């Protein structure tokens, strides 16, 4: 049609050319907008994940402080977690720690993989129960453990809420697992593996809901981050 029009008369060709240019401009602008939007969303999520990550690192520090403060009780807890060992039946050289296997602890509500009969029971993890906040009916956070931030508890931390210009947020942290490993005949080279989780909530559901179609219509604004570290506690537990 355009060709016929051209052959017949060039009238209107300027508009056609302009419209063609405009189409290219539209494509360019759309691409620009989309890229800009993606960058902003990714950047936002990185910012949130960093916050959650540092809360998790803070929880690991708390765990280390407890081990540092209560080293004997920590080893007792390890022993209790697997059942008490009768010291009188330990063969020479009477090193009871040789008989303590590695330990995995669960928080209430946590389901191990594979699941175990003791899942969700508050046993050895009570050593660290002081860090835990949970909600039996989580609504907003369905992506990890069903844990949701609860205000008013000792795990509710607000970043500079008195000065909202500094990008405030809510968050909490919890120690999820402590594993005592690499035991030897003394505790000089004992190591613990600490797994902690931090959660933060910026309150921005728009940014956090993007690109996560598997959650469907579930609105959430919370980001969780898991931190795992291996630390030599030999210098801590020797008094």
């Amino acid at each position, binding site marked *: 049609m355009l060709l016929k029009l051209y052959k017949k008369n060039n009238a209107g060709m300027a508009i056609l050319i302009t419209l063609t240019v405009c189409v290219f401009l539209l494509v360019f602008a759309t691409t620009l907008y989309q890229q800009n939007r993606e960058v902003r969303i990714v950047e936002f999520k990185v910012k949130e994940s960093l916050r959650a990550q540092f809360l998790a690192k803070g929880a690991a520090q708390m765990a280390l402080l407890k081990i540092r403060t209560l080293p004997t009780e920590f080893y007792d807890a390890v022993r209790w977690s697997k059942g008490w060992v009768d010291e009188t039946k330990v063969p020479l050289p009477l090193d009871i720690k040789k008989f303590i296997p590695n330990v995995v602890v669960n928080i209430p509500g946590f389901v191990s993989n594979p699941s175990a009969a003791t899942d969700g029971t508050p046993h050895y993890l009570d050593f660290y129960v*002081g860090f835990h906040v949970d909600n039996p009916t989580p609504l907003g956070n369905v992506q990890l453990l069903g844990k949701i931030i609860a205000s008013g508890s000792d795990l509710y931390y607000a970043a500079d809420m008195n000065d909202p210009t500094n*990008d405030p947020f809510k968050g909490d942290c919890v120690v999820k697992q402590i594993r005592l490993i690499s035991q030897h005949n003394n505790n000089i080279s004992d190591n613990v593996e600490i797994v902690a989780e931090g959660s933060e909530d910026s309150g921005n559901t728009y940014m956090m809901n993007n690109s996560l179609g598997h959650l469907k219509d579930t609105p959430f604004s919370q980001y969780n981050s898991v931190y795992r570290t291996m630390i030599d506690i030999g210098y801590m537990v020797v008094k």
Partner: protein
Amino acid sequence: MHFNKINRVMGVNSKNPSNHFSLSLNYFNSHRAFTLVEIMVAMLIMVAAIVPVTALMTNNAKETNVSEAYSAMMHQSTRILDTLLERVRYADIISAAKLQGGLASDTATTEATLLNLLDIKDSTNTAAPGTAVFDQELRYDGPGLAAGKTWQYAEPSRQFEPIIYELKIRQMDKTFRYLLNVGIKNPVNAIGEIPDFNTPNDPPGTLPDQKKVGSVSLSGKLMKITLLVGWGTPRPGITRKYQNNYSLVTFKAKLED
């Protein structure tokens, strides 16, 4: 050649004086050129298309600038906090807080603000005592801001757009509970026999040394660290100190002694 003459040559009736101008355009039209109306409409369309695209590109450039700044803020914040958690002694941070933030004592739980991170000195550096922990990577001596009060990201292009870092610390009293090592001669062989913190199963009247749950309270052993980051002059009408802000929170335990 005068237009009238052109029109005569082209066979246009020059006695019709209604529109010599449009007639002369017919000359171009007859040579398959654009009409004035066409050009005007096309220009309007172009303007309508280019203005929003230009605005979008301008906005994109600003956003890119802000994104780069945020990347720098996150990068440097991570380095600062990781250094504080893993390389700096607890007591060194407290010393800086007492010096600059007005912290009353080693165990005070009031919040202290450190505006100058250079005040955190590395006490383990015996070769050069008094050296600031962030001496090399964060010292800023640019114009317009007091040296040592602000911090720049190491990227040269942002040398004179310093990112401001402030540190707020608040020590927290902490109580840890634990299962008492009692009944050692009565082996526990099942998890169900382990007392719970909330329901320790101690019968009424249990003597303190026979209780199964104990606790220890700590002061001056745990601090909450809030790193506040700001960058950019606020736009008109905005009362914030900086245009772009970010904050991170973590905790540090006193493990060194």
